[in-house]
């Protein structure tokens, strides 16, 4: 059956963006070069979408453990940029359960309530 999935709340910093760039190999200047990023429509650096999405993975793994690693599915849209200093809340709301699969509506939102990521996560509930 579906279990409660606890939110993950984290404030992302430029230091974290830099560390993620190193860890993932994604050194796109929009994430790590403030001078460059100021010349773009974003007006400053933004977090890697996959860094923000990692909060959803962390949240689902905390709830389901190895089941998430072997049966989890995610389908999301990146809807808005996340900026250094934003406090991001990843949350999941149980949507339905059928055929032994639990489905959640997942999202990441910032401290202003803006939705950054939105989508669905499913995992074997057995």
């Amino acid at each position, binding site marked *: 059956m579906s279990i409660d999935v606890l939110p993950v709340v984290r404030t992302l910093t430029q230091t974290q963006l830099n560390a993620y760039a190193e*860890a993932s190999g994604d050194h796109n200047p929009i994430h790590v070069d403030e001078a460059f990023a100021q010349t773009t429509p974003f007006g400053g650096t933004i977090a890697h979408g996959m860094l923000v999405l990692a909060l959803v993975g*962390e949240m689902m793994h905390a709830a389901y453990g190895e089941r998430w*690693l072997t049966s989890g599915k995610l389908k999301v*849209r990146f809807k808005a940029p996340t900026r250094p200093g934003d406090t991001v809340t990843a949350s999941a709301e149980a949507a339905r359960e059928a055929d032994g699969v639990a489905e959640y509506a997942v999202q990441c939102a910032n401290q202003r309530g803006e939705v950054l990521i939105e989508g669905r996560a499913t995992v074997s509930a057995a």
Partner: protein
Amino acid sequence: MTSTARTSISAFPRGHEFDASRFSLSAEQVAAYLHATGDAGDYGAHVPPLAAVALGLRALQEQIALPEGSLHTGQEAEHHAALRCGDELVLTGRIAQRSERQGFVISVIEFEVTAGGEAAVRARATIMAPAGGA
């Protein structure tokens, strides 16, 4: 069709298959990923699936150039088997969908990470890139 040099994503047609990439994720790399994401969870010797997806995307970027103004607008991932640090991984990928709208090319890159010949992670990344971007 395969490629060996970096080409703008907007230039790849639907159905283009990328060269297979081989890689592995060490315990140190996974620790660096978890530190960067702030994830203090206990994964044991396992690799967080999204780490495999992120590194898979990175491997594909050896062949794909993302022009300035490109945006990662969507992501799907399916986990089929837990990956372990040190596993020999093979990544295969292709352009599953391609469309053009208002000066942008929207490409869906579909890729799979296998370990020991078995699919461990399947993923689809949607990338919006300026048409004709270098």
